[in-house]
């Protein structure tokens, strides 16, 4: 529990040590971070987990303020699905979660006070994490928190934040509440906050380690990771599910599950025909999975991807409707229109050479032995020469 008593914060490592967090488990956390973000994150761009642990351990716990808007709290739930560290260690000793309406013990005016205190203490330094979309219709009347419209709260808290992280699809681009006809005018955080760096971590929910990686990157390295055009960190969102899917081999071989529970489905074949949005969805689920158990992710358990991270796909295209795959780059190793055939064996080439050479030599030699000029026609034999041996013939 965060305290408002002004005790100076210590480094993450000493904090964890004080709370009895095993070093081995800390190293495992750092390894997990490296696996979560092998590229695109300066924090993990190190030779091994030890180096990452050293960098992280030296850092002071970053202050994080977590605001909920039009959410289902799923993105907080996902945060709880970590075991090393477990949620307590995570929110107390790795980061300092100074305000979180679901997890904090306080409520009412005490909670308000905690929020103001955290904002004042860490002004300009705290990371604001937003969960849920922000309704904008009727001046944001569809969401009031502590009597204030959510829209206003966001603007106030965001004003002093060092960085804003939009956790989940709702905060990133509107998510479920923004589904047609979007009666509340739900939008993502970056439609409201324009003057601060905003990182979107879409997903419903996203993988918790993505959040942890971004927060620690900011805390340890002092900057935010590289992002794409939609402000999503490239270490997690730079590829389609389709391009990293374990079932891609089945897609490429034309093995599709055509119905839930059919033979193909049981065999774990590609779910494209059941409406999988993998080919048009940017996310890292196909390699990161969930709940720290391998293959626990939608496609892994036989449910087609619904494209929850992707605006215009998730909660927009019907779940079981197949998508076009125009953007997928053909694999390099694909049968080409003109396949080469045939080779020359050395033996064959040698034989041909020998034959041509042999015939040629014979012809040349023969022609040389022919008389250049043939003598005039020899008179034909007359009857008088019939008797007796002829001088010309002979048994040579």
């Amino acid at each position, binding site marked *: 529990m965060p305290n408002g008593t002004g005790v100076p914060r210590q480094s993450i490592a000493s904090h964890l040590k004080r709370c009895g967090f095993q070093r081995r488990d800390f190293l495992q956390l750092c390894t997990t971070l490296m696996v979560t973000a092998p590229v695109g994150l300066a924090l993990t761009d190190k030779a091994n987990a030890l180096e990452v642990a050293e960098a992280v351990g030296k850092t002071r716990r970053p202050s994080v303020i977590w605001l909920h808007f039009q959410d289902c709290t799923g993105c907080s739930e996902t945060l709880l699905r970590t075991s090393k560290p477990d949620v307590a260690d995570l929110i107390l000793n790795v980061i300092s979660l100074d305000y979180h309406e679901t997890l904090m013990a306080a409520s009412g005016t005490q909670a308000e006070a905690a929020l103001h205190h955290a904002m004042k203490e860490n002004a300009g330094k705290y990371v604001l994490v937003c969960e849920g979309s922000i309704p904008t219709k009727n001046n944001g009347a569809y969401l009031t928190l502590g009597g204030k419209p959510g829209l206003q709260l966001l603007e106030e808290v965001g004003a002093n934040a060092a960085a804003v992280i939009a956790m989940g699809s709702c905060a990133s681009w509107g998510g479920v509440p923004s589904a047609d006809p979007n009666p509340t005018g739900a939008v993502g955080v970056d439609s409201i906050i324009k003057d601060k760096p905003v990182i979107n971590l879409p997903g419903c929910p996203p993988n918790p380690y993505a959040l942890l990686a971004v927060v620690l990157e900011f805390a340890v390295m002092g900057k935010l990771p590289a992002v794409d055009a939609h402000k999503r960190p490239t270490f997690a969102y730079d590829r389609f599910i389709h391009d990293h899917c374990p079932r891609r081999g089945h897609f490429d071989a034309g093995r599709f599950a055509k119905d839930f529970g059919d033979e193909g489905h049981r065999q774990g074949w590609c779910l494209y025909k059941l409406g999988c949005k993998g080919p048009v969805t940017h996310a890292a689920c196909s390699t990161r999975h969930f709940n720290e158990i391998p293959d626990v992710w939608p496609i892994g358990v036989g449910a087609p991807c619904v494209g929850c991270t992707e605006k215009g796909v998730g909660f927009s295209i019907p779940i079981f409707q197949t998508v076009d795959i125009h953007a997928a780059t053909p694999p390099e190793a694909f049968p080409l229109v003109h396949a080469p055939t*045939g080779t020359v064996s050395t033996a064959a080439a040698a034989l041909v050479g020998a034959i041509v050479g042999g015939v040629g030599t014979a012809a040349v030699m023969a022609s040389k032995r022919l008389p250049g000029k*043939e003598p005039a026609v*020899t008179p034909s034999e007359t009857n008088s020469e019939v008797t007796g041996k002829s001088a*010309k013939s*002979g048994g040579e």
Partner: protein
Amino acid sequence: MTGNWQRAVPVYNQPIRTRALYVLGALTGVAVLLALYRVFAGLGPASGMNDAYSWGIWKTFNVMVLTGLGSGGFAVGIGAWVFYRQRLHSVMRAALLISFLAYFCGLILLTIDVGRPWNLYWMLFPWNWNTHSPLLEVMVCMSVYAMFPLAVENVPPILERLYDDRPSLRPLIERAMGIIAKGYPYVIGLAYALPMMHQSSLGALMLLAGERVHTLWQTPWLPLLYVWAAAFMGYACVAGTLLFCSLMWKRARDMQVLTEMSYITAGLIASWWLFRVGDLMYRNRLRAAFAVNPYSFVFWLEMVLLAGSVVFLVVSSRKQNTQLMFHGHLLAAIGGALYRFNPTTFAFQAKPGAFYFPSAIEILISLGFVALGIAGFMAAVKLLPILPAPLSEWRGMEAHGKARSGLVAQGYAAAQD
């Protein structure tokens, strides 16, 4: 006849079992074994053929080229019998033997080459023939030709030899000769009509391939050009072989006959050459010959070889120079062979990236059966009266025979009476 070549005489003064024969026999043996391998392993392991070039050298060389070279039987025959060029009669037997051996070996290789030879029996049921197919025409016509008219034409030397050797068979032989003589014009009419049909059908084969054959070779006149080429190849092969044999076995040459043959060959080539170029010009394809690529190079190679052969043949005939004449016939044979070989191989563009080169086994099988033909020729001309020679040669043989064995002498002496 005032020339040297007055009578067909066996090459009696040469041993039949020579080293060359053994080598050729060994090559044939190798080919037979490899052919067995082809039967069990399939065409793929035994050759370099693939789906892009499904016809290798067996069909394109042993059948198309060698039967072309073996067209002396009909080409020289038409000269001798239809146009009644007396002189050509003396070389007819050699021409017929060459033809028979070329067709025999060609048909063997055709049987080796087809993938499912047990279904060839369908040839015997005309109601199942696809009369639109040039290949059917080739298969049926070549088989009929080789088995009937060509075989019959080659029978007389055998009968003659038997007549001399086996007095007891004489009445039978005389009856047989009588039958042959009676039907001869009708039989050799077939012997000229049939080859003209299938040699032109060999050309028609590639008509169906359409644009897959390069434009410098593909023409609606392909059948005509093929049979025309067969004609001059036949002449060249016969004349060249006779020159070569005269050298090997020290036989007299008959320049009158050779000169006539050379002129005929040159005339056939020259007219063929002009027709081909004319046809290319008429269809506006000649400019392809001037593009810089391997196709134009090979085209010009063919044309230059054949033009060169015409020059050599005419000059050598004028100057009675056998060396030049031999070169001329050789160039004609090679040029014609190249022309007939190319549309199914080099000029055949299956698809980009496709490549074919015969495998060693394929070459050895092809070679082995050519060796069989050559060995057969060598043995036949020594046993049978085939190669033309002056009468004095015949007398020499009689003397030689008398010296060797009384029985034979008896036979020869009897003929004289």
